């Protein structure tokens, strides 16, 4: 594949003149809310951690957990093995806490700060919408604080807890304590440790035994203040025979400085439980010269703890300057199932080193990986996947398919599969393909009457079909549109 160094411009290839870097495109969500923010001083220290903890009114055990994590983090070294290139991050040059000033406690939607409401409307998340009719509850997160959690009552009737992480620490401390850190412990990796020390908020979902959550749960994130690192922490627990589908969608405004996003997501599925976690990620990717943009260094992991439990990750990633994440599953319960469906797009100077980890521990476990990487402009897209079958994980089965699509001749696609099989009765299959949308294909489409934009869209959608069909309906539509917008101007 291409060895293009994204920081070095390559000479134009005349023959591929049709496929070039983007035309000017205003990032659709580029705006900033003029909301009063309660902002901490820059830098990371024990004091800042204490500040965060006290702002959130946390119990002592939570503060202790944070401080331990901070200690851990200080002893760790930032990893640089990924195939991504970025300027060193100055961790002292980041604000670790910012919350919009709440004027009063909110009991209903009418009491939401009108400025905040307006922000949400611009993002297309109207809290006024009849989300309930379409079956979606929305937990809107602005910066590092939750604002309004809707439809609590519907969920409460079913016994489902869906609230901000902060609220969960207050109202359901036992549950949080029991499960938090059990999938991604603070010492797991550098960014997980950082998150454990300074996380401010995120979502908490708890679905009790036998309950199928009646609504598709959804959350939106948005970084508002400059230099604010986004450290979200989400925990979803599905007890025996419970089921839940959760949607995560992100947007962020245009910025000149890079912003770090080191979130942690933990999923726990007990016996016969099912968790479906879908993400459509559209963070600011940097401008056409590769300046600015979000760094998305996320640790997401699902623990199929129970027998016949099932966790599936579906993601469409089109944003961020750098994406570094491996949503994975630990298949501990016998007959448990882990799935990963992903479309990752890199355009202009975006870089991605992403993939999944499937660890087979129990007996007769099964995992499926379908990864579609699309590279355009000078984007670099690396798939890194690990399928690990431990000795004793008899009857384990894995199927992986990694396909890359290159748009143009200055982007790159790379695949690093790690198959570590320590069990003779396991079956592991891996397929990979690389294809290119070339000028000849576009010419072919165009002279049959199909415009360049439609042709690229058609080809790309055909490529992503298998993944899109795993997304919940409304996300699938949004994902297709997002892909279209992200690819605008990459050709012609």
């Amino acid at each position: 594949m291409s060895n293009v160094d994204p920081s070095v411009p390559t000479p134009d290839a005349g023959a591929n003149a049709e496929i070039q870097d983007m035309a000017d495109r205003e990032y659709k969500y580029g705006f900033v809310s003029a909301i009063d923010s309660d902002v901490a001083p820059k830098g990371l220290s024990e004091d800042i951690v204490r500040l965060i903890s006290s702002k959130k009114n946390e119990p002592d055990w939570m503060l202790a957990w944070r401080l331990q994590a901070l200690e851990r983090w200080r002893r760790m070294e930032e990893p640089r093995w990924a195939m991504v290139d970025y300027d060193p991050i100055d961790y002292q040059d980041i604000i670790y806490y910012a919350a919009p000033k709440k004027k009063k406690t909110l009991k209903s939607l009418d009491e939401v700060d009108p400025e905040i409401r307006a922000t949400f409307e611009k993002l297309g998340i109207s809290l006024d919408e009849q989300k309930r009719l379409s079956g979606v509850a929305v937990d809107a997160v602005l910066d590092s604080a939750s604002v309004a959690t809707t439809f609590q009552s519907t969920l409460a009737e079913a016994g489902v807890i869906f609230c901000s992480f902060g609220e969960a620490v207050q109202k359901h401390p036992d549950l949080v304590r029991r499960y938090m850190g059990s999938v991604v412990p603070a010492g797991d990796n550098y960014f997980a440790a950082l998150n454990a020390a300074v996380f401010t908020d995120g979502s908490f979902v708890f679905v009790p035994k036998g309950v199928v959550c009646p609504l598709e749960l959804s959350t939106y994130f948005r970084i508002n203040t400059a230099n604010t690192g986004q450290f979200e922490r989400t925990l979803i627990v599905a007890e025996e025979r419970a089921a839940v589908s959760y949607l995560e969608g992100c947007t962020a405004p245009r910025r000149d400085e890079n912003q770090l996003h080191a979130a942690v997501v933990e999923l726990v599925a007990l016996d016969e439980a099912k968790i479906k976690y879908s993400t459509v990620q559209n963070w600011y990717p940097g401008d056409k010269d590769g300046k600015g943009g979000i760094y998305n260094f996320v640790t997401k992991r699902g623990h199929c703890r129970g027998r016949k439990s099932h966790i599936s990750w579906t993601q469409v990633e089109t944003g961020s300057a750098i994406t570094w994440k491996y949503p994975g599953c630990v298949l501990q319960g016998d007959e448990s199932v882990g799935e990963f469906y992903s479309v990752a797009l890199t355009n202009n100077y975006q870089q991605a080193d992403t993939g999944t980890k499937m660890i087979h521990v129990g007996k007769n476990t099964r995992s499926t990986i379908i990864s579609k990487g699309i590279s355009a402009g000078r984007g670099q897209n690396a798939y890194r996947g690990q399928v690990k079958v431990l000795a004793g994980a008899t009857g384990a089965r894995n199927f992986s398919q990694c396909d890359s699509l290159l748009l143009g001749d200055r982007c790159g696609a790379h695949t690093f599969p790690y198959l570590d099989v320590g069990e003779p009765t396991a079956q592991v299959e891996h397929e990979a393909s690389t294809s290119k949308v070339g000028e000849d294909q576009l010419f072919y489409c165009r002279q049959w009457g199909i415009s360049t934009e439609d042709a690229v869209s058609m080809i790309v959608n055909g490529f992503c079909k298998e993944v899109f069909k795993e997304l919940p309906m409304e996300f699938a539509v949004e994902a297709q549109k997002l892909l279209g917008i992200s690819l605008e101007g990459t050709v012609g």
Partner: protein
Amino acid sequence: MLEIKNLHVSAEGNEILRGIDLTVREGEVHAIMGPNGSGKTTLAQTLAGAESFTVTEGEILFRGRNLLELEQEERAGEGIFLSFQYPVEIPGVSNRYFIRTALNAIRKYRGEDEIGAMEFLGLLKEKAAVMQMDPELLTRSVNEGFSGGEKKRNEILQMAILDPKLAVLDETDSGLDIDALRVVAEGIVRQKRADNAFLLVTHYQRLLDYVVPDRIHVLSKGRIIRSGGKELAAELEKEGYAWIDAPASGAKG
């Protein structure tokens, strides 16, 4: 329908077509023949608007419109189609979907309504049967895994559905066995009407046994050096192209 006047075309700085004059009227079938490198494919692709070729001089009028002003998709909307010498594969996009998208794009250009799903399927089935194409092929990705013959049949099928005014078929007969050739030829003949026209680019005479041309033009080194009626094909088949470079013909490049 098509008027080409003094067309000069270059690619990467080299002049390939050096003054082509050609007129094609409605209802006519013209054949372009000539040795390799004479510029046949360049001519075909230039008509479709391929960007690797630059028109340095001359004009092309299509049904009264200046073709060179139109984008590739617009030319398709106006009714020009190019059937490729090497049809391209498009993985992940089914034939059915592709043809329907193309058909709707053209209808939209012409201000017509899009075709309904059921109507389209009916049309597709009908034309596929005529082309003796296995319907299963239509669910597969465009040209993916198709043999050379299947690709050509697919091209003709698409043409039958899109119904162009001027079909430019570039080396349609290359790589076809006798039966496939006959099916493709019959597909072309069936398309032929008083209000459309065909430009067949071919090396060999055998296609012209089935699709009888009104005029044959011999291209050499970027110029049409000879034009004639259908008998010219038999003569070329017999004599080859060697006579073209003979000084007596005065056609030195």
